[in-house]
């Protein structure tokens, strides 16, 4: 470690005016805050965020306030219409529908967030490395992705879940394996354009290593597309889980989830048991719309951030 050589003080330059911060000078307006401002200004984002908060509270805090038995089958209580004691009625096994929605939402949200997190991390690193290194490495890494993409996802999922007994973590792993590909391609595309920017060259000029450039410069600047792809992944995985469950290949009992509820409810639809279909369908739609709203809003906020002052 070498020490600093002192710089001789020079005569002062002509005074230069700095941009005067509009608010308190101690709180500099960072790109993060500007970005947050743009996000807040966007109505859709707030609505989406509010909806997600309500759903999360419903699924995680709800069961603490509204206790139901979702484990013991009580056939004497089967298929009760909404009424006192069961605000949304009960299903064929005598489970309370409202309580089951909360239970099912928990696994859906857990799955959505877990898949989004793993795909984002893997996809981002993979895509950033491929984009930064370029050339042959990039070509090989992208062909790997193309190969994976050629496998029809839903078929692979169906085979895997019918061969092995699905668990929540097993499905998370499978969905992550399938959905990091898109994130990786998106990030690579972004990095391809970012790496030609002069600040990346400047980092190389300082002697910065490839790892540092990827982690300190490229990934933070690609954060926008990463977040957008992450929020859409949450919605997609929740939908995929529901689809699997709907086909009867979802999480085994005593796990509950919205897809299973829907498919069970459909069988009873002709009996007039509407409360077994509409509630899970509605909450599924609301959840997916909420995450898509956030994704859209982040996408728009990003455009604002790219504007020059």
């Amino acid at each position, binding site marked *: 470690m070498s020490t600093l050589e002192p710089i001789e003080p020079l005569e002062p330059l002509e005074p230069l005016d700095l941009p005067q911060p509009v608010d308190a000078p101690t709180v500099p307006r960072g790109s993060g805050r500007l970005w947050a401002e743009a996000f807040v200004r966007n109505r859709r984002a707030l609505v989406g965020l509010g909806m997600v908060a309500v759903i999360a509270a419903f699924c995680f805090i709800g069961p603490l306030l509204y206790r139901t038995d979702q484990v013991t089958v009580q056939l004497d209580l089967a298929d009760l219409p909404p009424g006192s004691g069961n605000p949304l009625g009960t299903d064929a096994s005598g489970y309370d529908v409202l309580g089951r929605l909360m239970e099912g939402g928990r696994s859906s949200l857990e799955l959505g967030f877990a898949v989004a997190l793993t795909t984002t991390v893997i996809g981002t690193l993979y895509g950033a490395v491929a984009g930064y290194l370029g050339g042959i490495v990039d070509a090989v890494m992208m062909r790997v992705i193309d190969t994976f993409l050629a496998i029809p996802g839903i078929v692979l999922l169906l085979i895997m879940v019918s061969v092995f007994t699905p668990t929540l973590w097993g499905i998370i792993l499978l969905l992550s394996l399938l959905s990091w590909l898109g994130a990786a391609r998106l990030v690579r595309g972004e990095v391809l354009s970012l790496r030609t920017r*002069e600040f990346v060259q*400047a980092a190389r000029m300082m002697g910065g290593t490839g790892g540092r450039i990827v982690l300190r410069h490229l990934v933070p*600047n690609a954060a926008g597309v990463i977040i957008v792809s992450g929020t859409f992944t949450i919605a997609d995985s929740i939908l995929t889980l529901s689809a699997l469950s709907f086909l009867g290949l979802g999480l085994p009992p005593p796990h509950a989830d919205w897809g299973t509820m829907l498919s069970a409810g459909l069988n009873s639809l002709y009996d007039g048991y509407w409360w077994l279909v509409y509630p899970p369908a509605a909450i599924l739609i609301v959840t997916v719309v909420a995450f898509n709203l956030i994704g859209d809003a982040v996408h728009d906020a990003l455009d604002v951030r790219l504007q020059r002052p």
Partner: protein
Amino acid sequence: MPLLEVSNLTTHIRTRRGVVRAVDDVSFTLEAGETLGLVGESGCGKSMTGLSLMGLLPPGGAVVGDSSVLLDGRELVGLPDRELRRVRGNDIAMVFQDPMTSLDPTKTIGHQVAESVLLHRGCTRAEATERAAEVLGLVGLPHPRERLKDYPHQLSGGLRQRVLIAMALANEPRVLIADEPTTALDVTIQAQILALLADLRTRLGMAMILITHDMGVTAGHTDRVNVMYAGRIAESTGTDRLFRGMRHPYTQSLLASVPRLDQDPSVQLPTIPGRPPDLTAPPGGCRFAERCRYATDRCRTEEPQLTGADDHRYACWHPTSGPLPAGTTAAVPRPDGPSPSPSPSSADRPLLEARDLVREFPVHGNRLPGRARRVVHALSGVSLELGPGETFGLVGESGCGKTTLGRLLVGLDRPDTGTVTLDGTDLGRLRGRELRERRRDLQMMFQDPYSSLDPRMRVGSILREPLQIQGIGTARQQKARVAELLTEVGLPERGAELYPHEFSGGQRQRIGLARALALTPKLIVADEPVSALDVSVRAQVLNLMNRLQAAHGLSYVVISHDLAVVRYLADRIGVMYLGRMVEVGSADDIQLRAAHPYTAGLLKAVPVPDPELERAKRGTGISGELPSPVDPPSGCRFRTRCPLARERCAEEQPVMRAFGPEHTAACHFPLSTPLADAAAGRLNGGGVPGSAGGR
């Protein structure tokens, strides 16, 4: 009656921050056949004035108040869009700045030129195409009929700009608005395009509004000038009078801050401090007061109106008379280095030495089997040396290889053959860790102040990063060093807490320079350090570069297409053409005693802010365009554009010959006599200069 009469033009643009008064009460007239210049810094409203006339304002923009635009007595403001469309492209046409983005890449140029004819003339497609070929020929596109089916990407920047002009001219408009028509082009091409515009104006009897920030272009190609500042006209008069007897201090400062070819490099350039006011809330008094050297209390409270005789009006309470006297500028001598520019011959060993650098890039795409791989010859054997504390300038048109050379010199790229030696170490042999540590001595200053700083890092982190990477000092020392660096480049220490987007272009360029200085390098390669900046800010950055060089004994390699900038900074200059160095010499050698015809042509093409000089040299620049570097001409690469070229130039590659102690050029038929020939001539009692073989 004037052809175009603009009065009280006021344009407001609604944004989220408030209403921007982009053009504020602007009045002027334009006679048939004359060229009016609109000049000023960026953001002064000159482009907005042009767009307001065309009714092409951006979203949120509107012409308001009692604005009036009379074209031949017909009011254009408030005209319904359907009728305005008939005027646009027909009576008033516009040429935009960037030929790369102003043409539709998916349509042929013939189609695009014909389109505007079809829209306005109600003729058949065949007639329109005929007309397109005619105007493309008029703007000097070679073989226009064969090129009608060409797509924009098949044309060079200069030719695209000609196509744009053809589109504007297709309907013989009466007014042509040219918005920075040559800013994106090389000086040589700029001279050609401006000459073309002037020629067309006289032939077609158009009136032209030339919007530009370049005082040199203004001097040579306008009859009258409106100087704009902060949305208003500051001064309006004939071109000659403006340059010799300007009355507004803004005009005076603007002109003084432009580095000229004949600038004395030993004195600092005068600068305009500060930046233009925020147009959402313009200051109450004179808008220039804050930056004006003559401002008094009256200027800050009372807004001056345009006054003076009809042929020279200005808005100022304390008008000046003429350019800044030389005395005021000479009073600030440029600081001298610790050892004033030692020439490489006198130094024991050059700091940096490049030998026979060759760099070729493969051409991507359609490689047919059996055909040789095609390469771009970016550099074909370039050598240079640089002493400690010296500044070497590299000039040439874009595509001549100067940026590639800069990247090789700092080790961002490796040469195919040849060596770069820094202080006796061959950079090409260094790998990994060793190379990363060696980077300390070599830094780069980038062109675009908007992309050279990571937008997601605070300025403090940006400046600390090099120290962190190289493991220099503790966190506390690093922070102290950041504060020192900021002070050194003239920014307050508080700036460390801000993000790059909160600074102006010039301030960002200072931050870029501070970052390059953080590791106390020996050499900084500055690639177009000021070309993205406004003229008034350019001078500040150039002065700062000089000051820092003197304080730290830095060596610079300055890469620029702007000969005046290079001339101001550099001790020695290298002129590059198509991957080869064609002439190297001291700044004076190059400017006063250029031996290579290319250098001479380049010098002529640089616009000088002096109306008389500028008009005198019209049409004498370099003709043609840079040949493809994929397939460079044999022998001397300049021969295809050289007025002196003969057979020998195609057959034999000229070698560097000495014309002075440190002046060399590679030309078979140079403009002055090489030293060896002169000596031989004296011995033999005569000889035809230039005809004797140099080998």
